[in-house]
């Protein structure tokens, strides 16, 4: 009875696993159709993207949020969402004990139900990578590290690159970098591009997520431009927020980013992932995001390889809802672990 989404028949994503800045620049020149990648060329390209009408965008996001996902599809969505979580702790007060505890949670999310899937990754500061890596071992749960002077990004490029290399050397599977919002807002797109491309190069074959910090970009037009800039510069994922700035992830911001990765794949054949982070706390919220992924970007993104949630508390709510579906009774906070 429903209209089925047929996935577009595009070449499978073939992003180079190891990038060089020169290679990224060459690809960018190709996409823009220019012989030299200048700030002027970038500005023309980014400002030539279609605008985003705030009201219409928010109305569409709200409308997707009214989908009713029940019973079997809810169970499926909960497990998918759990598997998409980057279980995160990014506090000044983080300790080895705290990180180990979080990793234990990632390995055994629900001691009462061993069939519960594991989250995709544990996300920590760079100095905790080794601890997390050790705790997670070869479980398949990845370690993501924030880098590049997270969360503000206010440091020299050299420091940012050192920060990145440090985390990579410590064994991080994924790097979550922040863009220079100051440079972006002052129109220094080439600076932002170069920094991302350099960090990408520094990552080697480590996955790069580019945090746009949409709360500081303010407008959806900016979000769309920043998303395209990050993809042009080689980001494997675009991520909404650090979690340190309000508002963090919202449905409409994620909508704009999902449209961006959809359009990018159409334009270049390259698929880029999306990670909303911060402020997603409930199963209901998570399912709204999944509905949006499914209906806006499409089925190819419905996988932890292409969509993540940056969250901490969300996991427990998903577990409570999962218990409810399994047992038929409403569960309570005493039946999930606090880590």
């Amino acid at each position, binding site marked *: *009875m*429903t*209209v*089925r*989404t*047929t996935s*577009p028949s595009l070449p499978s994503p073939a992003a180079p696993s190891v990038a060089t800045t020169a290679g990224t620049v060459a690809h960018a020149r190709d996409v823009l159709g220019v012989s030299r990648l200048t700030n002027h060329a970038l500005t023309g390209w980014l400002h030539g993207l*279609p*605008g*985003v*009408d705030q*009201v*219409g*965008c928010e*109305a*569409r996001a709200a409308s997707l949020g*009214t*989908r*009713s*996902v*029940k*019973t*079997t*599809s*809810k169970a*499926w*969505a909960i497990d998918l969402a759990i598997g998409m979580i980057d279980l995160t702790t990014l506090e000044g007060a983080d300790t080895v004990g705290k990180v180990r505890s979080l990793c234990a949670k990632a390995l055994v999310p629900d001691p009462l139900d061993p069939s519960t899937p594991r989250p995709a990754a544990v996300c920590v500061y760079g100095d905790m990578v080794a601890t997390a890596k050790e705790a997670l071992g070869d479980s398949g749960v990845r370690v993501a590290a924030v880098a590049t002077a997270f969360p503000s990004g206010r440091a020299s490029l050299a420091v940012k690159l050192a920060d990145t290399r440090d985390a990579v050397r410590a064994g991080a599977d994924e790097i979550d970098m922040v863009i220079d919002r100051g440079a972006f807002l002052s129109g220094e797109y080439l600076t932002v591009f170069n920094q991302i491309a350099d960090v990408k190069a520094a990552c080697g074959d480590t996955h790069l997520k580019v945090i746009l910090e949409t709360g500081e970009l303010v407008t959806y037009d900016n979000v769309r431009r920043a998303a395209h800039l990050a993809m042009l510069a080689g980001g494997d994922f675009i991520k909404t927020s650090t979690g340190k700035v309000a508002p963090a992830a919202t449905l409409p911001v994620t909508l704009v980013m999902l*449209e961006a990765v959809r359009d990018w794949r159409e334009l270049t054949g390259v698929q880029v992932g999306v990670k909303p982070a911060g402020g997603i706390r409930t199963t209901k919220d998570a399912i709204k995001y*999944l*509905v949006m992924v*499914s*209906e806006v970007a499409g*089925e190819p993104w*419905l*996988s932890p390889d292409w969509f993540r949630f940056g969250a901490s508390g969300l996991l427990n709510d998903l577990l409570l809802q999962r218990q409810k579906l399994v047992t038929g009774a409403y569960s309570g906070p005493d039946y999930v672990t606090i880590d």
Partner: protein
Amino acid sequence: MPTFEYAPAPESRAVVTIEKSYGLFIDGTFTRPKALFDTINPADESVLAQVTQAGPRDVDKAVAAARRAFDGEWGALSGAERGKYLFRIARILQERAREFAVLETLDNGKPIKETRDVDVPVAAAHFFYHAGWADKLEHAGLTPSGGPLPRPHGVVAQVIPWNFPLLMLAWKIAPALATGNTVVLKPAETTPLSALLFAQVCQQAGLPAGVVNILTGDGRTGQALVEHPDVDKIAFTGSTEVGKAIARSIAGTTKKATLELGGKAANVVFDDAPIDQAIEGIVNGIFFNQGQVCCAGSRLLVQENVHDQVVAKLKRRLETLRVGDPLDKNSDLGAINSRAQLERITRLVDIGVAQGAQRWSPECSLPATGFWFPPTVLTGVAQTHRVATEEIFGPVLSVLTFRTPAEAVAKANNTPYGLSAGVWTEKGSRILWMADQLKAGVVWANTFNRFDPTSPFGGYKESGYGREGGRQGLAAYVTTSPRTPSSTTGDTR
């Protein structure tokens, strides 16, 4: 990885009680059911209930009851007291919203998410808005300060269509009562149930007998009602053909009329449009309520240099539309209201294809019973094709192109209709220029199909006359001429 299919999420139909049969609501009570005909659920063709075919004598009784109420208790009420009845009705509609939403979906076939999120809440909002006007009419700018106060016409005959049964009822009854008129309303033949439930709301609100009378029946009932000699004013929403017949039938009389008729709106998309929102606006414009909307954006006028891009994005978007059980909360499109309407849509689309349009619909399986039509896009349409000029009143979008703003305006206005239009561009000055040029009563710029009780709605040219909603909508329900018998100085119809 399985596709993210949503399990069925049907709204419970247990929230509403449907009687086996219904009489007419005249003078505050329901008559004994007689001369019954079926009202069916268009989604599965099951019979929901039987309702009474009102005959000429029923019309006489209802008009007489309305006249008595106007000359009696209702006419004697202060504006403030009238307003309080409207506030009561608004509140009851909100309290019983789920009941109305389910009933409307069953009888009409439109998806529950629309009745739940649009039809019923906006209907309640209309009563709230007009309730406040009841004791402020002298401030509405309809008469000069210090001049005569605006007065009600008396008995108003109201005939409404099947596409928004409860909402159209609210658009009609709320301003009529706020201004002190009494009402005889005929809902559409295929969608009488929400009006009959509304009759119960009138009883629940303690509305004086005869202020609102509901007559069910087919076109004969409507004709008898509008031609009744003791009716002072007519408010009609429906086809242009019937609207013209009404205009002829009241010619040379003192009856007033407002007519809200057909449309063939152009939705104009420029190459600098906010493209993703424009796609949503196109979808909302033509697939809201299965396109059975007089102001539907049925003609997509897209700038030629972005035609392919827009059509490709549109098709991708349509592949995510969910057509099916109207009671399922995830259905985006429900059933077509009647077999007759389905046949009309089918015939016009076939003609469109025969005249050279290319037809496309997303892959979708439609239910075996009930009246269903898939969301459809016709590309390669020319102005001369019938699908570009005739109102299809279904989920069918005709796509045409233009090259310059002047050409867009010329094509948009090239129709006897003039109800609504859409414009999509990020350039502010162009929006204002287009809004000036478009011959349409409602212009949606960078949005579409928005409705609000404060916002006047109604058309130019053959889309009818008069406005509904807002300050301007009040004008249709009052007379400002001096109180002399059978004198109509300076009144338009």
